[in-house]
């Protein structure tokens, strides 16, 4: 079943067009990767899906509901959760408070308790650091916290904006392993990455974004094998 559908979406910053007539779908249970260079419109796409930006044309459907005009904070309750670019940890809150923020829109205490267990299972480090302030943690720990926090709303669709940014290589592999695990637990993942290698290897399907439009699409393996993409994004060829 199609979970998310973007239809002919365009986004403008003033007169500058950041996304041009973009359409794609995310099916339930998938990991979908969007890869592209700086300024290709990856983060803009993410912000448009999560509602921080409004499209100037086109429509977005989520779980069968048109959410084009829906406010960002309501989309969270509907089941879209984002770990933003740069992680967006609240520096003056403890790890536990940050996780609580992830469940801000929720009322079911038992479900929340279950999700906190799930997050601590995925990221045992966070459990150790419950009382530590977010601002005092390392980049990798912050990324774990950002993903864990996004899971706290028990989303149907998890948006990850460059989870590998600024992390050490062994940490990147670990994060991607966890992303696959989250997906195996039943959460659909839409991933934006510059690290095309990992992103394509882990994805069921992937799209290549160039200057605001999709130029290639296919399964992760297909794109990994595509010579043009190899040259442009994988540093080989």
């Amino acid at each position, binding site marked *: 079943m199609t979970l998310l559908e973007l239809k002919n979406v365009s986004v403008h910053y*003033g*007169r*500058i067009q950041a996304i041009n007539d973009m359409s794609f779908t995310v099916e339930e249970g998938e990991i979908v990767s969007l890869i592209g260079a700086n300024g290709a419109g990856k983060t803009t796409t993410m912000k448009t899906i999560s509602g921080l930006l409004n499209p100037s044309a086109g429509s977005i459907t989520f779980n069968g509901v048109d959410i084009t005009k829906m406010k960002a904070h309501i989309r969270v309750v509907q089941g879209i959760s984002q770990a933003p670019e740069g992680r967006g940890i609240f520096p003056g809150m403890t790890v536990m408070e940050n996780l609580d923020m992830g469940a801000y829109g929720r009322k079911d205490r038992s479900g929340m308790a279950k999700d906190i267990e799930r997050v601590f299972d995925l990221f045992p480090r966070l459990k150790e650091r419950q009382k530590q302030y977010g601002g005092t943690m390392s980049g990798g720990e912050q990324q774990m916290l950002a993903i864990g926090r996004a899971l706290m709303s028990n989303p149907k669709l998890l948006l990850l904006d460059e989870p590998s940014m600024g992390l050490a290589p062994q940490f990147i592999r670990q994060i991607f392993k966890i992303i696959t695990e989250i997906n195996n637990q039943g959460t659909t993942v839409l991933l934006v990455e510059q690290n095309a290698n990992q992103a394509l290897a882990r994805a069921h399907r992937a799209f290549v974004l160039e200057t605001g439009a999709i130029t290639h699409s296919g399964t992760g393996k297909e794109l990994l094998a595509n010579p043009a993409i190899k040259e442009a994004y994988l540093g080989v060829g």
Partner: protein
Amino acid sequence: MSTTDGPTLLPSAGAQQDAVDRESLGKQKKGWFNGLGTRWNGLPRQKQWLYLLVIVAVAYLLPILNIPGLTTEPGNNWPLALAQMSIYALVAVGLNIVVGYAGLLDLGYVAFFAVGSYTASMLTSPDSPYVHIPYLWTLPVAMAVAMFFGVMLGIPTLRLRGDYLAIVTLGFGEIVRILATIIPAMKGQVGFQNVGHPPGTDSSGNAIFLNSNGAPWYWLTLTVIIVVLLLAGNLERSRVGRAWIAIREDEDAAEIMGVPTFKYKVWAFALGASVGGLSGALFAGQVGFVNNQKFDVVTSVLFLCAVVLGGTGNKVGAIVGGALVAYIPLRFTAIAEYKYLIFGIALVIIMIFRPAGIFPARQRLLAYGTQVYNKFTHRGSDTPPGGQGEAVGGAHVAGAEEKGAQA
């Protein structure tokens, strides 16, 4: 976020988007007087000078041309009203340097005005026991003293973000009034009588600059305004002016580009203060009496309203705004009682609906951008001049050059 951060207000993803929206919007509906400004810039330089001469001549003739409908009589003496308007206009020009050019909110401008007034009166009034000097010499002294206070106030606050300056100046405005009350030498409510005036007598031996005779004071202030305008205009086009605009538009970016923002902010603040002191000295001379009742903070807000009304950053707008703020209560005496309320509401409404004021400032980052643009457009096809030429900086000039190349 630390307290020294730049001017970000709720930094949100939409901010950029809206900022650009705003810019493009601003271009479509620039102002009620948009056409005027555009046409003005399209005129050749000689014609501009000619028109300017006519305008200045009319301005000088105003006290004699007691135009019905425009005049404030019978309620208020017209030349005296003009004198007051011109002083307000000068104040607005000075405050515009601070608020308009450099984007610093000074809510205690009346304090510098007061400093200037007290300087003039304490150096000329027979009520004062100190050294006495000729009145005209008090003008530069008042400027210097006000500037000194400006620097003293600016140095601690201008390193911090703009809000602190606003509240500190607001406090300072009130403090000067309180000090005038509690420091015995400043004579509180008793004040200083018979403040000095410039020399000169008419044919019958009476002094020309009488408190009751507005016209000479008006002419004097008008002349001062013209001089200040010429200087301010030069500053605006200079390196300093560009630095101010850069600071106003994006202080962080300016700092990164190597603009010593703090230095230029102190400069703007001190220069603004000195013009405030100058107008205060003129005011003291014209009214002839200074006490602690004349300088309340509400006057500061009136001054701010004058600048905002005219369009922050536009010196012509500031003059008109200043004159209007003084003129409206004198002309329409029925509403004079409500002037503070009216100007307070005006301030909010302008900010919400028309933040650029009546005469929006043109933000020319490149001093000769307009000329270059006009040159090319005149040579090229009949592209209507204006609009883009006055836009924000380099990109448009580059565009103009492209057009020129095609032509």
